[in-house]
């Protein structure tokens, strides 16, 4: 007979309405055998009492509904962002507060490199906090005038390079290419944007960057960094799923030590639909506890801060032209219909409200052609939706996953430049989702922002920007609602709420183990609650102390 372990805890926050709080949880075969008092659980028979969590607080393991395994990939390279960020080994990579600090950090790394030709690639850089000063090639030439040096910005759409990279690509004052930034004298500054940036990052890095970003090691690092923040289930929410990546997922997740359940989403544009459907069905044959295929992703527009989101009238607050479609309305219709008809759940990236409108129309048409209950197609990001769009989501049976971390990281820019005060104050409208009854999650989109559901919940609760402005008190939600959004709410958007997302009998024994009680700390301190570790299917993963 399998053994039973009963864990007493300071408090268990279950997300189960019948029994929101409890003192003990019993675990058998990796699942929750029961929740209640010790006396109530003793009826299940012999048990071992494990007091490891006696002074700690248990929550359902956090569910990150929108992240990318690239988070693990980029940690192969040095982080040079403005904010402190925890790396997969648990150490904190300290934030660099000015360009000189970035240069000096890179110079230290460069000194330690042995192969002279090997490029130096770093990521996470964000000059929006540097009072207008941009990095240029001369800055990076202080790192090296011979080795290619490339610094990728936190939005992953902009890149700074040093002179050797410019020279090798033949970029000079005569190069007239959109996205190559020039100074007032017409000289390229070393900053590259959008497709030019992406091209140069891959071209000049001189390594199989795509491979390195999603190999087995990357998946491991992603899982570790997620686990450190209390996550037990995470998505890799857009992947072409080439064989090499799938093999990496499989090998990593086959290990008992792999600390998360991983849900990759297939990028629908990668293959003709019939082939895509066939591929996904074949992959799903090998689904297991820790690796689940079946999600589909469609990317409609770009990003708000990248000025590439598709917006409805009146468009960008600073008057710049509307953004661009990654997938046009006709293709959105076609892809959505095909995967809808084949029974899949589709996650649709929409940042701007016009993109959300097109996606809502597409779902409405798909349902008219092929009625289907409980499809739970989910709008991802959905940062600009107004109340009417939320009402449509509710009516159409959709879910939404809001990008709460944006409020902090780009809220000031949205307020002053991209959206303007009115729309910035209602962006990522969690309270509207609650009021209209749309099942919702909140997310980090790692590596765009760091993975950390308690921080994400803090954003939804406080709506504070990096400069300290409160963006729209009317869209703030209570800590309990925010914690639900990173557990059961997110599970619902992934159609896994029957299995994970709450601590109740029959569900998987997936817990986030916390030092402080997130419902007892002041709401402004939610992000500072410390994560002791996690439990995944009954297996305990203690995180190294930060």
């Amino acid at each position, binding site marked *: 007979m399998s053994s039973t372990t009963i864990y007493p805890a300071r408090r268990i926050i279950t997300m189960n309405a019948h029994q929101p709080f409890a003192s003990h949880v019993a675990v058998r075969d990796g699942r929750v055998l029961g929740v209640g008092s010790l006396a109530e659980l003793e009826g299940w028979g012999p048990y071992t009492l494990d007091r490891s969590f006696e002074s700690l607080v248990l929550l359902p393991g956090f569910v990150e509904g929108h992240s990318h395994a690239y988070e693990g990939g980029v940690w192969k390279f040095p982080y040079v962002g403005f904010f402190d960020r925890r790396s997969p080994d648990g150490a904190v990579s300290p934030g660099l507060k000015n360009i000189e600090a970035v240069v000096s950090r890179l110079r230290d790394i460069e000194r330690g490199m042995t192969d002279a030709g090997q490029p130096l690639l770093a990521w996470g850089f964000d000059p929006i906090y540097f009072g207008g000063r941009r990095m240029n090639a001369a800055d990076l030439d202080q790192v090296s005038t011979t080795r290619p040096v490339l610094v990728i910005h936190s939005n992953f759409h902009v890149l700074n390079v040093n002179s050797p990279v410019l020279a*090798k690509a033949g970029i000079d004052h005569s190069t*007239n290419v959109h996205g190559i930034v020039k100074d007032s004298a017409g000289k390229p500054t070393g900053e590259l944007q959008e497709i*030019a940036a992406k091209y140069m990052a891959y071209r000049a890095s001189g390594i199989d960057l795509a491979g390195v970003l999603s190999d087995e090691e990357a998946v491991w690092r992603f899982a570790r960094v997620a686990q450190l923040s209390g996550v037990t289930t995470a998505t890799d929410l857009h992947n*072409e799923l080439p064989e090499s990546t799938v093999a990496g997922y499989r090998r990593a997740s086959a290990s008992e030590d792999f600390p998360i359940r991983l849900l990759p989403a297939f990028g629908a544009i990668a293959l003709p639909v019939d*082939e895509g459907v066939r591929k996904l069905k074949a992959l799903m044959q090998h689904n297991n506890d820790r690796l689940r295929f079946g999600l589909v992703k469609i990317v409609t527009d770009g990003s708000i801060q990248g000025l590439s989101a*598709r917006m409805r009238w009146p468009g960008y607050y600073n008057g710049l032209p509307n953004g661009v479609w990654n997938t*046009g309305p006709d*293709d959105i219709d076609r892809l959505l219909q095909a995967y809808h008809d084949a029974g899949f759940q589709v996650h649709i990236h929409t940042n701007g409200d016009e993109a959300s409108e097109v996606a809502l129309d597409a779902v409405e048409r798909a349902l008219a052609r092929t009625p289907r209950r409980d499809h739970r197609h989910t709008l991802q990001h959905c940062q600009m939706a107004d109340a009417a769009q939320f009402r449509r989501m509710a009516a159409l049976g959709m879910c939404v996953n809001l990008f709460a971390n944006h409020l902090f990281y780009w809220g000031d820019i949205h307020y002053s430049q991209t959206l303007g005060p009115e729309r910035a104050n209602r962006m990522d409208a969690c309270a509207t989702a609650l009021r209209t009854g749309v099942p919702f999650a909140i997310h980090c989109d790692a590596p765009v922002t760091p993975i950390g559901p308690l921080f994400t919940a803090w954003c939804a609760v406080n709506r504070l920007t990096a400069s300290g402005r409160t963006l729209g008190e009317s869209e703030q939600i209570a800590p309990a609602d925010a914690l639900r959004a990173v557990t059961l709410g997110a599970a619902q958007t992934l159609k896994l709420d029957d299995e994970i997302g709450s601590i109740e009998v029959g569900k998987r024994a997936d817990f986030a183990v916390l030092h402080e009680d997130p419902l007892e700390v002041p709401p402004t301190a939610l992000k500072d609650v410390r994560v002791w570790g996690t439990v995944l299917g009954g297996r305990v993963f203690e995180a190294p102390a930060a």
Partner: protein
Amino acid sequence: MRRLPLTVIGGFLGAGKTTLLNRLLRHAGGRRFAVLVNDFGAIDIDSRLVVAHGGDTISLANGCICCGIGDSLVLALMRVLEKVDVLDHVVVEASGVADPARIAELALIEPLLARDGVLVLADATSVREREADRYVGDTIRRQLDGADLLILNKADLLSDAQLADVATWLRQRAPGLRLVPASHAEVPIEALFGLAAGDAPARDAPPRSPAANDATPDGPPIARWSFTSRGPVDRAALLAALRALPDSVLRAKGIVRFADAPRQRGVVHMVGRRIDVSADGPWGIADLRSDLVLLGTPDMPDAAELDGLFAGVAPAVSKSASW
């Protein structure tokens, strides 16, 4: 260094991009194309021509390869550049909502590529409606604005009057546009891509593969006119003459000795409305002679008219035309 010409084919869904690519793969004329496509399944290749089919690449007996773009054009292009030694020309099919001119700019930061042309297809029966669409109108406008040459496809579905109407409207909204009407994307492939031996961009003329021959493949006929001079060429007069060419001239290429830079080999490259003039180093031991070739549809002006147009450019030695 040898640079591969990069052509980008743009246009909205249903405008005929795949039809054009299929025609290109059939009429490659001995040049080894890498064609990057959005939808593999839509490419219609005679299975007898396929020599290898591996994952996202099909290799053809004529030396061409056809590659799927998947979800990243940048990565697909990078993979193709690994095969640079066995290729002569790269063609990218832009997605229906992409801005093909932006994609073509990658050739300006990639030393292995030379920007050849941006060909945009538009469906003559629906382009006006699309341009007015609230969701994609601005996307269509960006494509039209970025076109070196606009292929107004499905012309057979309109009456002459309707077609003239659409063409007038297009010219009004995009002044300077070069436009060629077509049905089933039947445009002289050799003229679009410079397939014949002397028609390739001279600075990177590929080694001819043994299978190549200069027989005109089937398809619409091509018109050709050329000009040779041993005298110095007046730069401004040449540019003016090129700009004055009618839409039926699809491509021009030349090696030119300009009066203002007689020691430099000047390279003239024109696709549709875009004219690039660059210096390609000293003449060296090469014959001090300017050559210019125009390629176009059968509607191209006759030799007498073209002779007249280029009369002021340089003292001509010989001109020839063929249809």
